[in-house]
């Protein structure tokens, strides 16, 4: 029989899953960070496709882990940790994960009117943009001129949110169905 400490230190199946998906999301995050953007605050957010796929296949808990790890480790590697960029990214990610929680609750409560990856992605993208815009406006540049960017930023969030959701739904359709021993919030362990 193993001592208790070493049992705690062994990563279980869900830990490996989270690490694997987080690594994928971080790689996409870094690739995207290397492309310049015409307007600050706009980027495709393809890494969110990973969060969405994890949410829809493995449940909320794993999705929150993957999303949080991506923002933290991604910004650590890009070098923006604790800079304004990081706080914008973190506030956007927090709000979009909260919205994904609501979306997951909605889908549980009303399976007849369920949101697919596309609807969830649009909601998450708008939440992300609103969150980072609010922080930018309140904390960093409380200037009314910033509000002029809002329609453009929200329009971009809608566009990229739809595209990311579509990509996520195509990937989900191609992935093999999960085995019955799948890890997830509702699945028995």
């Amino acid at each position, binding site marked *: 029989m193993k001592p208790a400490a070493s049992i705690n230190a062994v990563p279980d199946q869900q830990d490996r899953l989270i690490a694997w998906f987080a690594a994928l999301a971080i790689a996409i995050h870094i690739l995207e960070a290397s492309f310049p953007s015409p307007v600050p605050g706009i980027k495709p957010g393809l890494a969110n496709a990973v969060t969405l796929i994890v949410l829809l296949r493995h449940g909320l808990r794993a999705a929150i882990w993957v999303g949080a790890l991506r923002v933290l480790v991604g910004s650590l590697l890009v070098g923006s940790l604790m800079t304004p*960029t990081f706080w914008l990214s973190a506030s956007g990610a927090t709000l979009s994960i909260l919205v994904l929680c609501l979306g997951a609750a909605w889908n549980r409560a009303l399976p007849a009117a369920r949101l697919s990856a596309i609807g969830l992605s649009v909601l998450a993208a708008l939440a992300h943009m609103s969150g980072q815009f609010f922080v930018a406006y309140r904390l960093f*540049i409380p200037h*009314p*001129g*910033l*509000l*002029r960017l809002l*329609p453009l930023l*929200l329009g971009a969030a*809608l566009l990229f949110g739809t595209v990311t959701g579509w990509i996520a739904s195509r990937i989900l359709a191609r992935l093999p169905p999960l085995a019955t021993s799948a890890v997830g919030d509702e699945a028995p362990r």
Partner: protein
Amino acid sequence: MTRADRVVIVLAALLVGVAAGAYWQPRTVADRVEVQVGDGTPQVYSLDTQRHIEVHGALGTSMLEIEDGRIRFVSSPCRNKVCIHSGWLSMSGDATACLPNRVTIALLGHGAPEIDAVSQ
């Protein structure tokens, strides 16, 4: 795509439309620029006179250049240089910022109302 997805997309498009209606304004040629550091008092400069402006922000000095009725960031002590990549600005309502250095510039139009009056 489910029906709920379509509802979400339509509502999101409405939101973008409402934001555009509330905050979009027709563009006119600017004649002044408002330079602000953090939430400090904005300084207004005319775009008529060619000059360089040193702005002391949170990280260091940002250099602005005014020439031919337009303005740009020449240098700034930030990492991404988003402000410099914005290039020359000349239209009323154009704005850019060096977020790390907390420097914002916004162009004001001829006889245009104060931007404060934009809020609905």
